[in-house]
């Protein structure tokens, strides 16, 4: 185990406030590497990182690879269609086989909640959760914190609204836990079919009206609507969703004048976020992507053997 004190990064729940502050601090110092002419340092030279993506991903997968490569590590990527999963191998067996090749860390995205936890318990290699089912996406939450801190200076006391499909969003769950930990006030709003039962148990305020929810906020986070949710009748049509919950210029008139807009991507333009908002000066969506590389460098560095 590293000096960081964690073998795995499975959930925001496992991190203390000082853990999070430390990750953000390390990310801050590593971020400049992204802008160097020669983007390579030997920090993790000779280390190997397996990106095991059992679900499609562009941003997160590329971001982890980029982060690993900048730090000099070797990366191997496996997707569900190229893994033995399609041959019927169990997740635990796949993980044990990967472990037998002695990598330094396994990054996993999986459609089942708890899948990273399942393998982390059974292998000695560290596991990073890159998104599990509808549960958590801890590195996204950390890069969101990083971005908010970068733009707003201080997270404590900030007013944050999260709009959309809270129930089925791993970003929402990790963001809520992370923001509450760091002392922000969080308000959520969305169609009632997409608000999980007893959401207030996270310490958030549930707001009926999204316009009311964003009122006076410093940060507005939009969430991706998974289009297949429509089939389960969680909302009647994209048109109605967009009209009622889409983050628009009109909605942003209610926030603080300097409020920022975030989105974990991939965006459905014109559905949960209007194009003129996504492309406006308020939007920090692409900063989130850049910061993702910095934060993931920090996490890899700390888990594979950084000194605290």
């Amino acid at each position: 185990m590293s000096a960081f004190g964690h073998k795995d990064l499975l959930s925001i729940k496992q991190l203390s406030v000082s853990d999070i502050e430390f990750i953000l601090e390390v990310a801050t110092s590593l971020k400049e590497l992204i802008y160097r002419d020669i983007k390579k340092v030997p920090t993790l030279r000779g280390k190997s990182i397996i990106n095991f993506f059992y679900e499609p991903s562009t941003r997160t997968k590329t971001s982890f690879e980029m982060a690993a490569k900048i730090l000099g590590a070797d990366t191997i990527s496996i997707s569900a269609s190229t893994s033995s999963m399609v041959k019927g191998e169990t997740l635990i067996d796949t993980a044990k086989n990967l472990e037998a090749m002695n990598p330094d860390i396994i990054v996993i995205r999986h459609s089942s909640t708890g899948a990273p936890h399942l393998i982390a318990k059974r292998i000695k290699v560290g596991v990073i959760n890159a998104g599990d089912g509808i549960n958590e996406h801890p590195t996204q939450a950390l890069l969101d914190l990083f971005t908010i801190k970068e733009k707003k200076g201080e997270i404590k006391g900030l007013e944050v609204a999260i709009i959309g499909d809270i129930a089925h969003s791993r970003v929402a769950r990790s963001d809520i836990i992370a923001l509450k930990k760091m002392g922000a006030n969080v308000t959520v709003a969305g169609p009632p079919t997409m608000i999980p039962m007893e959401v207030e148990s996270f310490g958030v305020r549930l707001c009926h009206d999204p316009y009311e929810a964003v009122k006076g906020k410093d940060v507005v986070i939009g969430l991706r609507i998974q289009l297949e949710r429509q089939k389960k009748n969680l909302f009647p049509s994209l048109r109605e969703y967009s009209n009622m919950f889409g983050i628009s210029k009109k909605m942003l008139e209610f926030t603080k004048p300097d409020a920022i807009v975030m989105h974990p991507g991939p965006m459905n333009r014109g559905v949960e976020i209007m194009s003129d908002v996504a492309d406006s000066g308020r939007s920090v969506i692409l900063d989130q992507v850049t910061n993702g590389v910095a934060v993931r460098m920090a996490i890899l560095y700390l888990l594979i053997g950084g000194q605290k």
Partner: protein
Amino acid sequence: MILIKGGTVVDPVKDRIEKLDIVIDKDRIKDLVPCGKIFESDQFEFIIDAQGMIITRGLVDMHVHLREPGHEYKEDIRSGTLAAVAGGFTDIACMPNTDPVNDNASVTKFILEKAASQGFCRVHPIAAITVAQQGKKLTEFGELKKVGAVAVSDDGKSVLNSDLMRRALEYASYCGLAVISHCEDPFISEGGVMHEGRISTQLGLPGIPAASEEIMVARDILLSKLTKCPVHIAHVSTAGSVQLIKMAKEQGIPVTAETAPHYFSLDHTAVMDYDTNTKVNPPLRTEEDVEAIKSALKEDIIDVIATDHAPHSPLEKEVEFDRAEFGMIGLQSAVPLVLDLVREGVLELTQAIKKLSVNPAFILNISWENINIGQKANLTIIDPEFEYVLTEEMILSKSKNTPFLGKKLKGLVKFTFVDGELKFTSKLKF
């Protein structure tokens, strides 16, 4: 002859607890006298010192999955009945969701023959309500009854078509079969893997709301009212179901109900670690539901404690939570968990034994003799004070899927007699 001396005999029918010595001769109880009246002598093959132990008529579990035919790698009739006698059960009723489904006389006969030749206790087959449990066409209740089925159930799912369920109640009652209803609205529970509430929200697991069970409990009560035919509600897990059953009983509707030990011993917080052994259907509910189940047992709104013993191998359990099968084994942990309720003061000892023996026997209409002179010697001898940690080695079922593994239990079945034969002796010693 066998002498059992110094034990405390519990009679759930006469609601009596007394210290009696028991003499067993061949398959029957020959003598039953106040302690100390019978002297040890060499006419006895062996003598059991039952000082401090509870002796009851063999227990009855009306909800067991034996997995044979079809899934013998999880459990078979031999291993399942062995686990049963180790848990103190002399009679178990097995659910029809085997492969092939027990939906015809030949499968029922197969189970009975296998149980007679290899089983450690009596097995009472429950046949399916509908062919292949598909909810479309009734099975041949008349013939099934004739060859030895005691009840019908599509356990694992509800008969969705309310008209078909109505006909099943009417026809089963005519044939003398109990109807056991698994209550679940599959549309509302689809995709769910645990109770929908605070913990599912925290864990990011899709939920099964309490209403999924309660909708069907309400429907089946109304069908029972309409037809005046009895219905037995399996594995009640929610406070709402308890209320509905209470209301039905107050109106004289012939409904009976069971719950499983895990619904009064564990709540949904047990899922916290994504332990697939806590994944059961219906799911572990809230703290309030657990309290409601306990009160319902106390007030006799729930008549029966049945284990819903559901063996699964690591193939089904050592996987992602949403891919894992529902179910936990329960035959060997039932007695200590029920004794916990007695110790907590929720149940009287005789009341607890009633729910584990005479009540399920009555619902299934299977013969049940009390501990009396001349009756068959079906006896369970329990050491209520024995404390131990449940280990894999102790579990005689082929499958070890229980969240009570590694947990401390209090109360151990020491001996089980089936028709005068000692079928189980615990090897655990102080």
